[in-house]
């Protein structure tokens, strides 16, 4: 912070605060060029089974929209519930870790690290075995993906608060909860949001993986089913909707970040402090 003022102004990048719609134009051009290229390419290639054209995907959407939207709703539901549960569990666990005695914290932490390095797909297939083919197992898998994406960085941020700030809280006799609410959580929030953004994408992945392992509905099921019958167009259609779900949820998290972090320097300036 103090160094910031010492730097010559020419080196401090201060982009004007931009509205979220500012670069809508360039994105539109990008999308149009990409889609046009894809359309032309796939028509020249002419193998719809391998590479369907965007127009074919849109036509399939027209035919199947009721089913696709219903499946998208189901997957979205699993993703959102899993994300919320996983994120809340991760934040509470991170707080719990800080609260626990050092040796127990260490022990639990080792468990987390071990689980984290186990392939999630293996854990996901177990969840389907344990919780059945319904929506519950998908929520749990999405939640698990989120949990690991959020917990590690949040906990690390909680324990690496500037010691001088901790001394300041000591000096003013802060209790555990006060320290958490007034120091640790606010100073970890930028990192928490970054990991939540990762967590949201992980949740989409988790829900799809769960559906691939056994389900009767949802976009993952649609991918699996369409692939068996050789309907590549519908695989693409499902994939497009998975991406859309990810974008929508990412937008929500980013919006919450803007709302909650007005002080956060990296949003107003370049990433500098």
């Amino acid at each position: 912070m103090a160094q910031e003022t010492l730097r010559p102004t020419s080196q401090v990048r201060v982009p004007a605060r931009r509205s979220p719609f500012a670069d809508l134009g360039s994105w539109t051009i990008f999308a149009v060029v990409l889609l046009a290229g894809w359309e032309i390419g796939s028509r020249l290639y002419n193998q719809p089974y391998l590479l369907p054209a965007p127009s074919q995907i849109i036509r399939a959407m027209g035919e199947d929209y009721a089913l696709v939207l219903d499946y998208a709703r189901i997957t979205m539901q699993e993703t959102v519930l899993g994300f919320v549960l996983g994120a809340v569990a991760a934040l509470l666990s991170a707080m719990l870790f800080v609260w626990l005695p050092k040796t127990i914290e260490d022990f639990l932490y080792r468990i987390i690290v071990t689980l984290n390095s186990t392939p999630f797909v293996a854990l996901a297939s177990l969840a389907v075995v344990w919780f059945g083919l319904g929506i519950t197992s998908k929520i749990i898998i999405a939640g698990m993906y989120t949990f690991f994406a959020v917990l590690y960085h949040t906990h690390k941020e909680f324990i690496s608060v500037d010691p001088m700030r901790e001394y300041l809280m000591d000096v003013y006799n802060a209790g555990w909860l006060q320290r958490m609410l007034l120091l640790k959580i606010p100073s970890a929030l930028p990192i928490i949001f970054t990991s939540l953004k990762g967590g949201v994408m992980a949740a989409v992945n988790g829900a799809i993986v769960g559906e691939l392992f056994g389900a009767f509905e949802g976009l993952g099921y649609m991918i699996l089913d369409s692939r068996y019958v050789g309907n590549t167009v519908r695989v693409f259609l499902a994939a497009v909707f998975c991406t859309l779900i990810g974008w929508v949820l990412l937008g929500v998290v980013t919006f919450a970040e803007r709302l909650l972090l007005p002080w956060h320097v990296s949003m107003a300036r370049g990433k500098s402090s």
Partner: protein
Amino acid sequence: MSAIVEMERISKAYEVARTPGLLGRRGADRALDVVTNFTLAVRQGEFVCVIGPSGCGKTTVLFLLAGIRDPSDGRIAVCGKAPADAVRVGLSSVIFQQPILFEWLTAEDNVLLPLRLRDPRWWWWPPRRARYQETVRQLLRTVELEQFARYYPDKLSGGMQQRVAIARALTLNPQVLLLDEPFGALDEITRDRMNLELLRLYDERELTILFVTHSIEEAVFLSDRVVVMSRGASARTGSSIVREVRVDLPRPRRLALKEDPAFFQKVREGRAALREAQVAD
């Protein structure tokens, strides 16, 4: 009159951790003696400066007085209490080398922090909340930052940030103020202004001040007594304190004093003591 800050034959050694090597740990645990045989008594209302070369343990002394570290040996008391207790009930207060403001709180909320921590239910009781906010407003007026109450710290200059930190340190109305090179990062003109402001607060609030600095001029200008420390114990005194220079210049102090021969004389004395401190290590 008895002393309000007392340090009697204080020693502090830091455990220096063994260097972790690739195959197990190499080297032995070592204790680093930073402060040795440090004796200091500060009377109520006295302004004492501690100077010394970098790394001689000035911050360590201050941390001992703030209860952030415990001494390895010796007796220490602030306002007749253990330092950690004195600072927790607000009898003493610390200002660090950096302002340490929370960037998610406005200037006024930063100043409010000590009250908020002492009284977690402050928000639910409107009259008390109003009283606290009035206290904060007055403190910000004292450090001439009234118009900047709603500013976030990153929109304030270094000097303004340190003034917010001073206001925060005064929130619980302490008797003893402990400062660790608070103006070290500021330019000379700002530093002079801050010094005058500090002297005004010292008068108005009848504070007792222990002020760490590495500038002899600043030390002489501010204090009644300059304690000169050396890195490691001095061979002559057998303690971290090489010499004490009594500064019997009249108060109130004005900037014109810095042109006075008597001021130069004291600065010369201090500089000689500091040279001795350098030789000691």
